[in-house]
């Protein structure tokens, strides 16, 4: 098990390695750990996915609920992103309401999805001002071994791709769900890439051991057309402006790779469902 203490003991070794372009788990600086995506992992959810990045495991369930719109956006559905750092996932997680890390994670994923305009919230309106779809995206961290942000954003997007919303009919001002379901339409496929800074090296997909000793990290959300749609610097360290621009370029390349894995896996999943 990696702890702050064991990671700190290895810090000098890790610094020496990264200065030569190597990492403690044998990866190159720009390599992701093995990424695997599973669609439809929660049968009762309207959309779901599980994502593994190395041994980090995050599950996301999407639930569509009928509710009232916000007064300032009466013609729009509502997107809600929440994250739970479940205590079984790490000795550092404790039961209780979401802490600042869980809140930050959920809010950054929310911004990435929202600002890419992947979901047309206007299409989630049922009766303007009265009834709209509320999409709950619940991020469940089940095994924490670093880079929760990218695992959570990938799993959230995968779960939304897999989301099917019930068709409704309106009878006597009552909204009634029917048996039919239609897939949630997505206009973009935003993904986050987190770049860690250790010494003067930039690392893609920091593991937990690396996160414990990183100076800082930068999460960059990229849309399918390579636009930056959200960013968040975290950890009490710094980035130089030059490093930020390098991180943006690196993130663009990696987001394309990750998106390809996502699309390929989704295609296979859809094919297997047709056959089954």
């Amino acid at each position, binding site marked *: 098990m990696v702890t702050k203490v064991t990671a700190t003991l290895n810090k000098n070794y890790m610094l020496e390695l990264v200065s030569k372009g190597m990492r403690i788990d044998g990866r190159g600086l720009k390599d992701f750990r093995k990424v695997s995506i599973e669609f439809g992992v929660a049968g009762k959810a309207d959309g779901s996915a599980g994502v593994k990045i190395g041994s980090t495991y995050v599950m996301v369930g999407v639930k569509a609920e009928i509710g009232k719109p916000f007064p300032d956006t009466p013609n729009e559905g509502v997107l809600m992103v929440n994250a739970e750092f479940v205590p079984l996932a790490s000795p550092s997680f404790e039961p209780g309401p979401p802490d*600042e*890390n869980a*809140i*930050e994670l*959920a*809010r950054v994923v929310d*911004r990435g999805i*929202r*600002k*890419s*305009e992947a979901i047309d919230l206007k299409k989630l309106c049922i009766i303007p001002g009265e009834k709209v779809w509320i999409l709950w995206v619940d991020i469940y961290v089940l095994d924490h071994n670093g880079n929760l942000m990218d695992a959570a954003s990938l799993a959230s997007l995968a779960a939304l791709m897999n989301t099917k919303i019930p068709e409704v009919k309106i009878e006597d001002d009552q909204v009634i769900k029917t048996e039919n379901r239609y897939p949630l339409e997505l206009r973009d496929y935003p993904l986050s890439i987190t770049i860690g800074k250790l010494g003067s090296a930039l690392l893609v997909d920091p593991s937990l051991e690396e996160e414990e000793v990183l100076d*800082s990290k*930068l999460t960059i959300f990229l*849309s399918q057309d*390579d*636009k*930056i*749609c*959200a*960013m*968040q*610097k*975290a*950890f*009490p*360290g*710094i*980035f*130089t*402006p030059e490093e*930020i*621009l390098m991180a*943006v*370029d690196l993130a*663009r390349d990696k987001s394309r790779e990750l998106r390809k894995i996502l699309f390929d896996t989704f295609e296979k999943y859809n094919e297997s469902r047709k056959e089954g």
Partner: protein
Amino acid sequence: MSEEEIVLIDEHGLRVDGRRPDQLRDIKIEVGVLANADGSAYIVQGKTKLLVAVYGPRELHPRHLALPDKALLRCRYHMAPFSVEERKSPAPSRREIELSKVIREALEPALLLHRFPRTAIDVFIEVLEADGGTRCAGVTAASVALADAGIPMKDLVAACAVGKVDGKLVIDLCDLEDKYGEVDMPVAYMPGKKHVTLLQMDGKLTREEFEEALKMAISACEKIYEFQKTALKRKFEAISLEVEEES
């Protein structure tokens, strides 16, 4: 109000409050405004007003949080219920919890926390009137208050947001521009070290626009840095005058 009705940049290229795209709002910083705090600052940036108090280094409670090798920096960003249009519940919102975290992480790189092991340094940011840019004004004022408290620092941290409104990049967004603009990107920067300590962004920017936006934010932070230094100097000039008069 619908989005279409709002003109954020007029035909002369001026913004809702008459500023040019690269123009900051008026900034006033006062140092040492609170009697009880070890360090404090009051900042007025346009209509945004906030107070910062620094307590510490002081004994840490609860003790088990103490760090053996450095001081624990704690930060609370909080909005007064009357600071916004509709009353805000005084309970900390998810937004305030996130901002407290990013502000703490923006200030920490500037502080020599290793000089004060096992202690706490508390930074309290109280937003009294919010008109956009509160987290940035909070960072700007907090670093002045930390200097006022005599905490050894590598540099002051200045912060400013860049945004995109009506397709144009502008600095130091007011509330209206933040709400109806396309992009909001707060940046905190240590001008003396050329280090970025806070970077957040939401909206949509191309790589080229982002590079330009970052440059604009950094140059805005450099201007704010001068206000910070002037404010600190003013306090000590006042003290030296007092001392001279007494002697």
